[in-house]
Each structure stands twice: as structure tokens, then as C-alpha cells.
């Protein structure tokens, strides 16, 4: 026990001595959450739209006003003809075009049908669909107000957005960022600290010391657990104070789960480092190997429900996927352990497996 404590002390000193790295480790997650919490948004605004209005009259002016008044749209130009539309779309100068026929007011007055064309840049199907929805709603409301139509049968959907009624992007992304940044930073930290000892040859020295491999691993990880926890606290403070992300569940539970997840991520780093001979391979693996899967298979940006079934099965091995459900559950939905016990159990299982596999691999290598 004494030798173990000494070892932990050595690791802590390593960490504290390198002020520059320490600062990077602590500040990086906070800065990232700050930047992305503000910058990453999924709502669609400022859609560049062109209105083609060959014969302006009162009715079309009214429509133009309505489009311009909406903060969803930015009217780039009002054109008399469609001649330049193609080039403008291709050059990405406009994302939407609303093409009105001639003599709109007269047609409405006479009760003729009114053919209106709505062109949307659909290269991104999601944004395309949303843009089309916004423009359609404006045109339909304008028409309903101008032309008396028959009252048709109506089933009204009264929607309620539960847990995030304003669909605030930061409430959605900040918990995701916590999971994401923790994974990468923690996994990378341990992976590098262990492979560095290998590369510089000091691992040999540890090998001949009476400390057991499992204790070496534990000693390596302990200071990083503390560091990771500190980083979580900072990020949570930013989330609460700056973004006002709600914390509807229990803070103690959130901290406990975060602690568990830090160990999971660190254990992942240990496993990587036992496989990697050099810092280079360890880092490529930790960064290039973990970054995109954690980003795309965890539900951080793209919802898990949209994954094809085979890929959803693969996503089960991504630890961040489970932690993200836990963080969002506690913060946004106010869920307790009664709802989240399954995810917690999965994380515990993963951690145990990773730790066992890691220390076993290390023992074999050193033995």
C-alpha cells in the first residue's frame, strides 16, 4: 500500500510539474464547451431566398413583406424573371426561390387557381426539408388570409415539446459535449502517459519494481481521475451559469455517474496503450479511432433512432452513447437511477471489462 501511494505521488508530480500540459488539460474542455455551446446549432435561420415577382401588385407586396419580416429568411433579391436562378443556386448564393405567376392579385380576385413554385436547395435533405416547411407555411397563411376558401375538415396537432420546449440547441449539445470531451481527453491522457514510459524506457524500471501490474495501472489512473473530475466540475459550472442548461435531476447522481464514466474512458486509454508500442500509434488510435465514432455513433449530433439496425448494434459498444443518455436524462429530463440503472450497469460492465483486459495485457507484456 505504501509503495502504491508512492507511485501515485510520482504520477501526480509528473502531472503537476508540466504546468503547460496541465493548463491545456483543464482548460481545453471548458473552452470547447463554451465555443460549441454557442456555435453549434441545428435550427435553420437566415435562409437566403429570392422572390421572383414578374408583376408586383398589392398581393405580392404583402407576401414579400411577410417573408422579409420572418427572421427565418433573408430576402436576397426580388427578381422579375427566373433567368438567373439556376446560376445563383449553383453558386450557393441562394438556398430557396419563390416563383410567383403574373397578375397574382387579379387571379385571386377572379378566383382562379394560383400556381406558385417553391424551389429549395435540397443538397442537405434535413435543412432542405425544414426550409421548405417554413416557406410553405408562410405562403399558405398568406393565401388563406387573402382568399376565402372553404373551411375544410381539420385535425389539429397540438404539439408539446417535452423536456426542451424551446428546442434550445445548447441544452441539446452541452450534455453531448461533456460526454464527448471527457471521452477523448481521458482516453488520450492515459494512453499517452503509459506509452511515454514505454518509449522513454522508464517502463522497464517500473517492471523491476515490486509493484504489481494492476497497481501500476491503478497508480497511473488515479491522478487522472482527480483531474478529469475537476474538469467535469468546471464544465458543469459553465453549462449551468453560461448556458443555463437545466439540472432537473440529482447533482450527486450526476457527479457519481461522471466519476464512473471518467474511469471508463481512462480504462479505454489503458487498453489502447497496452496495444500501442509508441505514443504515435496510441495517439492516432485514441484520436482518429475514437473521435468520429464518438461523434457520430453516440447520439451527440445525429439521433440514435436514425441509425440503421446493424449500426445501432455497433453503437452499443461506444461508451459515450450510454453516458450521453445518462447525462441528458439527469440534466434535461430529471431522471433518477430508477430509469437509468440499465445504462449505469452497462457502463460498470464496460469499465470492469476494459480494466481487466488492460491490466492483463500489461501483465503479459511486462512478464
Amino acid at each position, binding site marked *: 500500500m505504501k509503495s502504491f501511494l508512492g507511485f501515485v505521488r510520482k504520477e501526480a508530480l509528473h502531472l503537476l510539474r508540466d504546468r503547460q500540459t496541465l493548463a491545456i488539460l483543464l482548460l481545453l474542455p471548458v473552452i470547447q464547451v463554451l465555443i460549441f455551446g454557442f456555435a453549434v446549432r441545428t435550427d435553420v435561420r437566415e435562409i437566403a431566398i429570392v422572390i421572383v415577382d414578374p408583376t408586383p401588385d398589392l398581393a405580392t407586396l404583402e407576401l414579400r413583406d411577410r417573408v422579409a419580416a420572418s427572421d427565418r429568411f433573408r430576402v436576397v433579391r426580388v427578381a422579375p424573371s427566373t433567368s438567373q436562378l439556376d446560376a445563383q443556386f449553383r453558386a450557393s448564393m441562394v438556398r430557396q426561390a419563390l416563383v410567383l405567376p403574373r397578375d397574382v392579385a387579379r387571379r385571386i380576385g377572379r378566383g382562379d387557381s394560383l400556381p406558385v413554385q417553391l424551389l429549395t436547395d435540397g443538397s442537405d435533405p434535413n435543412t*432542405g426539408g425544414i426550409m421548405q416547411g417554413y416557406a410553405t407555411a408562410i405562403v399558405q397563411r398568406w393565401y388563406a388570409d387573402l382568399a376565402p376558401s372553404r373551411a375544410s375538415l381539420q385535425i389539429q396537432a397540438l*404539439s408539446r415539446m417535452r423536456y426542451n420546449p424551446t428546442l434550445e440547441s445548447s441544452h441539446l449539445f452541452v450534455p453531448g459535449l461533456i460526454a464527448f470531451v471527457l471521452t477523448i481527453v481521458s482516453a488520450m491522457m492515459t494512453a499517452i502517459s503509459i506509452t511515454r514510459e514505454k518509449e522513454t524506457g522508464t517502463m522497464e524500471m517500473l517492471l523491476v519494481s515490486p509493484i504489481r501490474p494492476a497497481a501500476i495501472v491503478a497508480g497511473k489512473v488515479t491522478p487522472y481521475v482527480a483531474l478529469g473530475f475537476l474538469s467535469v466540475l468546471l464544465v458543469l459550472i459553465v453549462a449551468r451559469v453560461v448556458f443555463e442548461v437545466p439540472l432537473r435531476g440529482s447533482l450527486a447522481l450526476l457527479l457519481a455517474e461522471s466519476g464512473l464514466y471518467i474511469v471508463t474512458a481512462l480504462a479505454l486509454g489503458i487498453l489502447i496503450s497496452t496495444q500501442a508500442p509508441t505514443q504515435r500509434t496510441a495517439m492516432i488510435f485514441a484520436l482518429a479511432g475514437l473521435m*468520429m465514432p464518438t461523434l457520430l455513433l453516440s447520439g451527440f449530433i445525429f439521433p440514435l433512432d436514425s441509425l440503421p439496425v446493424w449500426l445501432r448494434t455497433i453503437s452499443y459498444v461506444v461508451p459515450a452513447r450510454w453516458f450521453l443518455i445518462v447525462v441528458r436524462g439527469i440534466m434535461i429530463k430529471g431522471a433518477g437511477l430508477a430509469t437509468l440503472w440499465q445504462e449505469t450497469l452497462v457502463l460498470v460492465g464496460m469499465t470492469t471489462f476494459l480494466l481487466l483486459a488492460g491490466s492483463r495485457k500489461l501483465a503479459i507484456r511486462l512478464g
Partner: protein
Amino acid sequence: MRIIFFLVRKEFLQIFRDHTTVVQIFMIPIVQLLVLSNAATFDLKQTRVLVVDEDRTTVSAGLVQRLEAGRQFRVVRAEPTTTGVEHALLDREVTATIHIPRDFESDLVLHGRAPVQLVLNAEEGAAVGIVQSNAGAILDSYAAELERSLPRLTRRQSVVGTATLDLRTQRWFNPTRNYKHYMVPALMVALTTIIGLLLTAQNITREYELGTLEQLNVTPMTKVQFIAAKLIPFWLLSLVIFSIGLTIGKLVFGIPMRGNLLLVYLALMVYLVVVLGLGLWISTITRTQQQAMFVAFFVILIFLLMGGLFTPVDSMPDWAQAVAQANPVKHFVFIMRAVLVRGAGLETVAAPIVGLALAGMAVLALAVNRYHKSTA
């Protein structure tokens, strides 16, 4: 020139000697492109819903039936009352609950309108907007269907003429709404960038840590030669990786190539200088590989999340859009999507390519300037 050639050869020998690294460099982007291209989508496959039908009439049953008929919704549970329904949302058992109140049918017959309560789990944000509009579309089409079949007691308003709004919508460039056409080019950029930036960022610090940098420093080569020799191998390697990615994109995912492929490569060659030069610059300002990696990680994350790959740049706040202007990934992803998906020509992408070229020169100058042949 000969000096550069030998140094490039040395770098290649060092890379290819380390088999683990070689496998990583090629396999990680390829495997991830193949797998993750299927993940980057907002196209919800099936939304699990819980239905509370308090009306229990043929009309309400018909609504449930219409929901189940499409492939967008799957009714996983039906409850007689709303008690305890909340829990299914909390538990993530369902994404939405639909509550058809009592008197649904009679309201429709008597008043011509009836409400349906839709509660959505908005924990995942934007995605529920799609669920909402899907549900709305089903309700609308069911209403139109009932319009013809259901007896109505309300008097219809007298109408002048048969005025109707004939709104025709068209979505250009991606009529099949295939996410892969949009995301695969972006993922190719992301993966090439990650690998290239990581390799260059740790390259010089590694030599510094291992002490071999001193040996290079005592040779007669100049600073420019040194940086050039470090850049060229990874530039070639990244070109190869990207080309493999492009081939996979075409053969496996069938991404469109409407524009000129030469234009893509022209942009790529310039873009790689920016990214790899940036990596080398990071490598000259950091002391340990650990530091180099964290800085590289930070830069990559900013590049990717603020590059319009996953979320639209237009939606970002103004300051973030201004920052994004300095993001090479944003410009290159724009060029890729413009040329491949929209078939844009040189006149559209010339400005960003020139911008990238200027950035490339600036970054290289920085790297050369920061690199000192003597250790302090």
C-alpha cells in the same frame, strides 16, 4: 532539391517501417468512411409512439391505423388513459405519445375540427421537428380522407369561384433526399484532415523528444528545405487516402460527381498544404507529443464542428460565422459539395480556392519562421 528528395525518402522509410502506423493511417479512414456514412443522417427510421385513444370510435381507430400504415411510426404501446404515459417518454421507451381525446369523432362531425395532443421527447432537439412534421402530414392526409367519407353537420362557407393555391415544391440537387450524397464528401474531408493533421502535428515534436532533431539540425539543410521535406510525404499520403475515399464514395455510396473532378483535386492540393502546414506549425510550437496532440485535437474539433459538416454554418451566431470564415475545412467542404453535388464550376469555387492558397502560404511561412535550427 536533392536534399529534399533524400529527406522525403527518410520520412517515407520511417512511416512504412512502422507497420502499425501504416495500417492505422489507411484502415481508420476507410473503415470509418464505410461505417459512419450510414450514421450521419437525420432520416428517422421508425419513431416509436405510444397511443392513448380515449375516443375509441372508428374514426380514432382509423387514425391509429394510418399511423401504423406508414413506415415512419411504430405503435409500441396503447394505453386506455394518460396516467403513467409520461414515464414511457422518460424511459426512452417511446419518442412520442399521441393522445386522442374523448369526443374526437363527434367534434369532427359537429364542428369540422378536432385536436390531437402530440407530446414529443425533445431531448434530441432538431430531430423531433421531423417527427412532428411527419405526424402532421399523416393527420392532414387523414383529414382530407375523412372530408370525403365523413358526414358533416356544419354548413360550408359559400365560396366565390374555386380559388385554390397550387403550391408546387421542388427540391433541387438531391431529389431522392439521400443523406449520403451530402455527408460522404464531408466525411472524406473530415477523415483526411484528422489523419493528416495528427501525423504532421506530432512529427517534429517526436523528433525533438527522441533527440533526432538535433542530428537534423547539424546538417547543412535550410529551414525551408526542412519544412518542405516534412510536408511532401504527408501531402502525397493524404492525396492517396483521399483518392481511396473518393473511390469508395463513388463505388459504394454512389455519390454524384456533377462537376469537374479536376477542380476537386485542385482544391484538395491547396487545402492539404493548409492543413498539413498547420500541423507542422503546431509541431514547432509544442514541446511534447502530448501537448501537440491536445492542440491538434482542439484545432480538429473546431474545424469539424464549426465547418458546416454536421450543422449549418448559416445558423451559427454572427461571431461564430466570422470565425468560420477562417476555417479551411468550411471552405473545402463547401467546394466539395458545390462541385460534386451541385455541379458548380470554377467561377463559384475560385474565390475559396484562392483564399485557401493564401492561407496555405501564410501557414507555411509561420511554420518555417517558428522552426529554429538551434535548441534554446
